């Protein structure tokens, strides 16, 4: 029986295998993660949800190779991940565009690096423009980050990640800093892109609706320290998903309340429960002090 599970690459495309993460701090070692274990299929869209400070970014950074797990490890196509690389593209929480480059040049930096040998100049140009078009940013590709809005910057960040043709796309609260309308628009764009490219995605979010709307599975994390996976929720809603239609859908509402229950009953924080954006930030401070 074990033979089938280990040889099927679809099933075990990305394996986050029993990772622990301890940070050295002035007051001794701080165990942020304990035995986090997820198997991800190719083409699967996973959301990581959990209270602020529980260790979501840490998980993502370990998969990206930016952090090294103290125990356990990450396997991508049965190869151990131990450094960052373009096959695991990251969309950072605050877009992280290089402010001195235009949108086009930001994507170009990635394309030049990843396809330096395999693409001609003309092909690269076409590929850069194609990816910017995918996120509807082709009209402002020669503008610099300080000349475009927050949502547009985030879209360029996504275009840059997509342009690397990654095997796994890692997104750390990609829409966290956006207003509700822009956020909805970006989620629709992402679903559209996902339909076309069928990427393997791990996305961190604080937003329950976003998690249910976009994911195939929702991974819910317990509070830290020694955070681990609390529950995993399968989302079997048919694609394409429409936010208006779903609002009435009983299955959608069941899933939604399951996540809410996990977050606000089972993993209820001792501190102020984050209900709004500002509270969330306050609470982040409180946890980092504590």
């Amino acid at each position: 029986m074990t033979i089938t599970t280990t040889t099927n690459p679809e099933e075990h495309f990305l394996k986050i295998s029993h990772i622990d993460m301890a940070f050295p701090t002035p007051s001794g070692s701080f165990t942020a993660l304990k035995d986090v274990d997820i198997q991800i299929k190719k083409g699967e869209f996973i959301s990581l949800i959990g209270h602020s400070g529980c260790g979501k970014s840490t998980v993502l950074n370990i998969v990206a190779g930016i952090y090294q797990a103290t125990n356990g490890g990450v396997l991508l196509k049965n190869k151990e991940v131990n450094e960052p690389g373009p096959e695991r593209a990251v969309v950072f929480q605050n877009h992280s565009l290089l402010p001195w480059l235009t949108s086009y040049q930001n994507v170009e930096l990635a394309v030049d690096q990843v396809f330096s040998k395999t693409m001609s100049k003309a092909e690269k140009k076409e590929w850069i423009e194609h990816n910017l078009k995918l996120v509807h940013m082709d009209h402002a590709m020669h503008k610099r980050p300080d000349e475009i809005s927050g949502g547009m910057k985030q879209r360029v960040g996504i275009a840059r990640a997509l342009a690397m043709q990654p095997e796994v796309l890692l997104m750390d609260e990609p829409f966290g800093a956006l207003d509700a309308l822009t956020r909805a628009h970006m989620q629709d764009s992402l679903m559209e892109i996902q339909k076309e490219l069928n990427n393997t995605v791990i996305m961190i979010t604080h937003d329950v609706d976003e998690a249910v709307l976009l994911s195939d599975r929702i991974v819910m994390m317990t509070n830290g320290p020694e955070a681990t996976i609390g529950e995993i929720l399968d989302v079997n809603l048919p694609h394409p998903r429409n936010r208006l239609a779903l609002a009435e859908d009983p299955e959608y509402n069941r899933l939604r309340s399951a996540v809410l229950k996990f977050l606000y009953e089972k993993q209820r924080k001792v501190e102020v429960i984050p209900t709004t954006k500002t509270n969330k930030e306050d609470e982040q401070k409180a946890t980092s002090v504590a």
Partner: protein
Amino acid sequence: MSLTTATINRLTVNEKMIKILKDVFSKVTNTLILPIIGIAIFVALWSITAKSIHTSLGEFPGPNVVVKQFSVLYDEHIAERQKAVAFYVRQDIRNAKKLEKNPDYVVKIRAYTGKETFVDQIFTSLITVTSGFLVAAFIAIPLGIWMGLSAKLNSALNPIVQIFKPVSPLAWLPLVTMIVSALYVSDDPLVSKSFITSLITVSLCSLWPMVINTSIGVSSINSDLLNVSKVLRLPTLTHIRKIVLPASIPMIFTGMRLSFSVAWMVLIAAEMLAQNPGLGKFVWDEFQNGSSDSLARIMAAVLVIGFIGFLLDRIMLMLQQKVSWDKSSASV
């Protein structure tokens, strides 16, 4: 109805006009009128206090005396130039005559060795400060980048930087002079020893602000940008060229501007003390002369030194605005 809208429109047009006039007015006041008033008050105070200061070389020069001295200095420069031309003409005639008498005569051309004028000294100083600054920049910026990239190197070199940073040029000068005399021996030197001494002293003192600012700029690059570079696996040189340099350009320029003003101050002191040609030597010579014009000539030199320092900073600022992507960092 139409009448009221018309009046409203006219009102707003008038208001707009008034607003534009106000803007223009405040701009003119800030950039022109206020500075002129400031300078006028300064000149007035100067001429009043100058009259009541009596030195062994006579009354302290007021603004009008100094202005006169400027034209004297310029006339002296022109006169010296004419003398030089005359010297070469005489030499040519002499050589031609000698050749006429003896066709085998090997022509000797001697350079004119007249006294350096004020204008010559200005140029000497400018060349020295620029060379010293460039030498310092060529060492400091790569070193600063390296220190910013490597925390280990930074910890290793930081104490040295911190100790040498506050050292005055006057302390370096004797050492540099002795070392240059010992090491720079050549029968036909390309540049004079005194030039090398000033240059090294200037470099030694202007090195540190650039090293410190560059390394701080590099080590404080946003970690997200560094992560972008890691995810892309940029090779070290590309990483420096595409991420590190542009990200730290504002800090590098801050260091360069600081260094250039340090370099200019140091140069004047070095020239004065070491008798290296330049504006500093001009000031010292005048002080030693002790003629009745000396104070006015020194005061003229002071104004020129200040003005050149200001111009140099402006040039650096313009350069920064050209090179830097972050226009807001390139302000006064």
